[in-house]
């Protein structure tokens, strides 16, 4: 075999990297060995362009049990001897090519990461970004992704409790499909991905190995792609029933002491599963690829090692326990195959029968080169940021028409038509399901609850990566705070373009720096994460879009609130601001500018110290049972926040405050660190006292009652009219030709 430029390119190995491989090995690798390098040194598995930045993220807190990069997912202690295991992961490129299977297998992969740690998966969330629905291909992608999540996820019996969906031209051709899975496990029963010393058996269980997904990690996930039809065969096909059986069988196995470790086969298939387990076990592995059960004849060792066939697990079985293990898997109708053993020599050795096919030190494979690419401020950044917002085009719509237009825009309008395609109640823990600021689940057998949210605003990040990164973290944490949860841990899915381009690396570098600043200020660690780079079509990058998943802890699950206004007569208070003032700068990056003017300009801003105080006070107010509702002010600004609370609670709002400055900015500007709450008037004094003690500003803005949304002189709209605009926005966008 000759090492050609095309071969290296197909494996995403640069010529410098090839030289490094030659030096490290001291010889020319064969094709199989090169394939192992290509996969494990890929961005997807090896984080070669992102690791130096990822190291900046805070990873530890007193609750952290397993942190980023250590295992398949992060784990945090929630007390009562329990831990939450969670992670978010992307399946963007597969979903762009084959939306149903791409999204379905994205769910499958993240769920395996969770139960590989011995945790029962208890919740799923999806953060989705698409191109506008005015484009028929975007509609096809949207429908396929939603159907794939529904088709695969519902079959597993894991509630799909939240997430968000938004649309922007930047995601045409390159949707973002990020899936988060959350699991529950007894803290002392977390299972490791390790070979656990030498002499243990490497056992494959689950699906047979086919040719699907070869080069998924090195090809699909680690470089830009153009002709999508050509890549369709690299997308795997999911079997949710088999996944469900694997969940149950593996959780039954890990409850015994027959296994030393458990690892799912995800990106780079058997290669990364076995090599990572060997690395974690500080040892080596010997695998006979001829033992691996196959779907078709004529597969080479290379095909077998790099296949990304779904629903497979690598179980590290203690040497004398195969009979017991077979009994449990047999009950579930699963057959097992011993494909190798763990060793102590530090080598990954692959045999085909008696013939040695590859032998490489594990530490070389798991230590890819790291790059700090050049960074350059994107050339139009300053001009976009300094756009003169006093010169916005005059629009012919009155305030009410503007509000209705924003409410029916696909980004703001109700996503109920999507969420009801997902089972969000199974397992009977869901207190608050999708469509809220954060989902709330109770933890059976305890008084505790958890709050879950995903967030990330690509528009903000494109305008100001540093501030955008800060806001992504702040908002994800704010979302869990406003339902009553103290944010205790984060996971991140970093979606960017090609990091080898200096302007893209600048975005990534600054977004992550912003995330670091916010996470440090708020005192919340990142315990897991995933990087998705090369999100580009025809040379155009997506908006830089870090998606943050937040985990909040509620000491008492009975004390949580939603964003719906509840009781006529309740007082409405805006926490975090001491007056309703409209500064034009607050329109920067807003939904209003996009929906009304088709613009993404300006510069978002946030005060992290205020943010921290506002979040803490919200949790305190909710856990003290003072509030009837709380809703984060975010996309669409104050007017949309109030309107959503009125619509979902079917209660009117009468404003009692004055607006200072620009009414457009006051009503539609996106001020961070502000939360709309409602409460009975008799509790107002207590709320004011707590906010004063904590030095958190507030404004009394209105009272609930009647059937209209009334902010004089701008709005006097029937709630029913707002509701029909909001309810039908997405549905109409999908059905329009």
């Amino acid at each position, binding site marked *: 075999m000759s090492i050609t430029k095309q071969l290296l390119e197909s494996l995403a190995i640069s010529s410098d990297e090839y030289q490094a491989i030659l030096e490290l090995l001291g010889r020319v690798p064969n094709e199989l060995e090169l394939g192992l390098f290509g996969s494990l040194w890929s961005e997807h598995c090896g984080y070669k362009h992102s690791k130096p930045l990822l190291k900046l993220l805070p990873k530890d807190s007193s609750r952290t049990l397993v942190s980023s990069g250590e295992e398949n997912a992060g784990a945090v202690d929630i007390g009562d001897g329990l831990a939450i295991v969670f992670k978010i992961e992307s399946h963007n490129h597969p979903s762009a090519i084959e939306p149903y299977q791409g999204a379905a297998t994205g769910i499958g992969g993240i769920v395996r990461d969770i139960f590989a740690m011995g945790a029962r998966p208890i919740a799923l969330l999806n953060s989705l970004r698409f191109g506008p629905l005015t484009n028929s291909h975007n509609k096809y992608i949207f429908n396929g992704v939603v159907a794939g999540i529904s088709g695969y996820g519902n*079959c597993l*019996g894991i509630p799909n409790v939240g997430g968000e969906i938004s649309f922007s031209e930047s995601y045409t051709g390159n949707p973002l499909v990020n899936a988060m899975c959350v699991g529950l496990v007894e803290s002392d029963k977390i299972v490791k991905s390790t070979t656990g010393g030498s002499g243990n058996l490497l056992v494959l269980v689950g699906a047979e190995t086919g040719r699907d997904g070869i080069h998924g990690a090195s090809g699909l996930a680690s470089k830009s792609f153009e002709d999508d039809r050509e890549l369709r065969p690299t997308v795997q096909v999911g*079997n949710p*029933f088999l996944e*469900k059986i694997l969940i149950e069988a593996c959780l039954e196995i890990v409850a015994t002491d027959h296994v030393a470790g458990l690892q799912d086969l995800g990106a780079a298939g058997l290669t990364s599963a076995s090599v990572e387990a060997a690395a974690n076990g500080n040892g080596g592995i010997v695998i006979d690829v001829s033992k691996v059960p196959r779907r078709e004849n004529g597969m080479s060792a290379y095909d077998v090692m790099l296949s990304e066939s779904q629903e497979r697990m690598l179980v590290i079985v203690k040497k004398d326990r195969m009979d017991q293990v077979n009994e449990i898997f047999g009950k579930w*109708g699963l057959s097992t195959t011993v494909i190798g053993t763990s060793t102590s020599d530090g080598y990954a050795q692959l045999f085909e029968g008696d013939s040695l096919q590859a032998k490489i030190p594990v530490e070389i494979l798991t230590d890819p080169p790291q790059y700090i690419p050049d960074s350059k401020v994107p050339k139009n950044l300053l001009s976009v940021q300094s756009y003169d917002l006093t010169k916005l085009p005059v629009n012919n719509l009155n305030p009410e028409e503007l509000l209705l237009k924003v409410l029916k825009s696909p980004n703001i309008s109700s996503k109920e038509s999507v969420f*009801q*395609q997902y*089972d969000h109640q199974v397992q009977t823990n869901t*207190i608050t399901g999708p469509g809220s600021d954060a989902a709330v689940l109770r933890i059976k057998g305890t008084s505790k609850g958890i709050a879950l949210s995903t967030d990330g605003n690509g528009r903000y990040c494109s305008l100001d990566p540093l501030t955008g990164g800060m806001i992504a973290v702040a908002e994800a944490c704010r979302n869990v705070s406003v339902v009553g949860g103290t944010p205790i841990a984060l996971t991140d899915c970093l979606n960017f373009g090609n990091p080898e381009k200096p302007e893209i690396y600048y975005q990534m570098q600054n977004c992550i720096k912003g995330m670091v600043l916010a996470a440090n200020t708020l005192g919340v660690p990142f315990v897991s994460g995933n990087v998705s780079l090369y999100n580009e079509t025809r040379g155009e990058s997506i908006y830089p879009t870090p998606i943050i998943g937040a985990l909040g802890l509620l000491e008492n699950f009975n004390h949580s609130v939603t964003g719906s206004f509840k009781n006529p007569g309740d007082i409405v208070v805006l926490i975090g601001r001491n007056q309703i003032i409209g500064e034009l700068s607050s329109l920067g990056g807003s939904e209003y500018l996009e929906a009304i003017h088709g613009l993404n300009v300006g510069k978002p801003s946030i005060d992290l110290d205020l943010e921290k105080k506002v979040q803490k006070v919200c949790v305190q107010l909710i856990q003290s049972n003072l509030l009837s509702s709380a809703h984060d002010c975010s996309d669409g600004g104050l007017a949309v926040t109030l309107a959503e609370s009125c619509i979902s609670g079917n209660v009117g709002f009468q404003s009692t405050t004055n607006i200072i400055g620009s009414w457009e900015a006051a009503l539609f500007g996106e001020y961070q660190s502000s939360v709309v709450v409602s409460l009975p008037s008799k509790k107002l004094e207590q709320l004011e006292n707590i906010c004063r003690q904590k030095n958190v500003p507030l404004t009394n803005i209105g009272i609930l009652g009647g059937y209209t949304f009334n902010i004089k002189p701008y709005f006097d709209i029937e709630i029913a009219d707002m509701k029909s605009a909001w309810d039908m926005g997405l549905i109409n966008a999908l059905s329009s030709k």
Partner: protein
Amino acid sequence: MKFGIIVFPGTWSDTDCHHALVEILEQDAEYVWHETTDLSEYDCLILPGGFSYGDYLRPGAIARFSPIMREIEIAAQNGKPVLGICNGFQILCEAKLLPGALVRNSHLQFRCTWTHIKVENIESQFTNKASIGQILRIPISHGEGNYVADEITLGKIEQNGQILLRYCTENGDVNEKANPNGSYKNIAGVTNESGNVLGMMPHPERCCESVLGGTDGRVIFESVISSLKTGQYTRDPI
């Protein structure tokens, strides 16, 4: 009194039923693996929701051949109460223990949402604690809950009072607007001719606690419990 909760590969409401029965209603309940062939110790059998065998081929079409199904048939003939929820309903139809069939929702999508259902007959092991015409708020979660049957069967089940539950509006109107899946005549739950086997698409086990949004599901389980205690509405073996 002991409940047996049947677990097929792919079942997922088993733990929810167990939680509702044991933790909330304080009953004795056990999981029963689908290969079990002795059901004598159970007084009521529950076939829970899920995707048995992935719903491949047709929902319930493979599960109905599990070894346990022969025993469930015998138990049903002997008058033991058998409750099929969602996928359990589909399995019981496939096994011909209930009339009719469940096909793809008319709008072709999976639907997980709260529904209102009207109790049409309270002379039953499953509804005797409800009042006639009572409106229950119970969620559904299925892609194939569209109840169909031939005209003769439909006439018969209507006449025999086998239709226990129909989808309705919040105010109790049984109309198209309230129908979440296209079911014929808004049928949400039917029994066999002797009344001891009920299949229902809504999930009563999901609403037995107020923290989950409602407690209307309890009345179904409480009816069974009461009937087993008092012997009322129980059936003699055929």
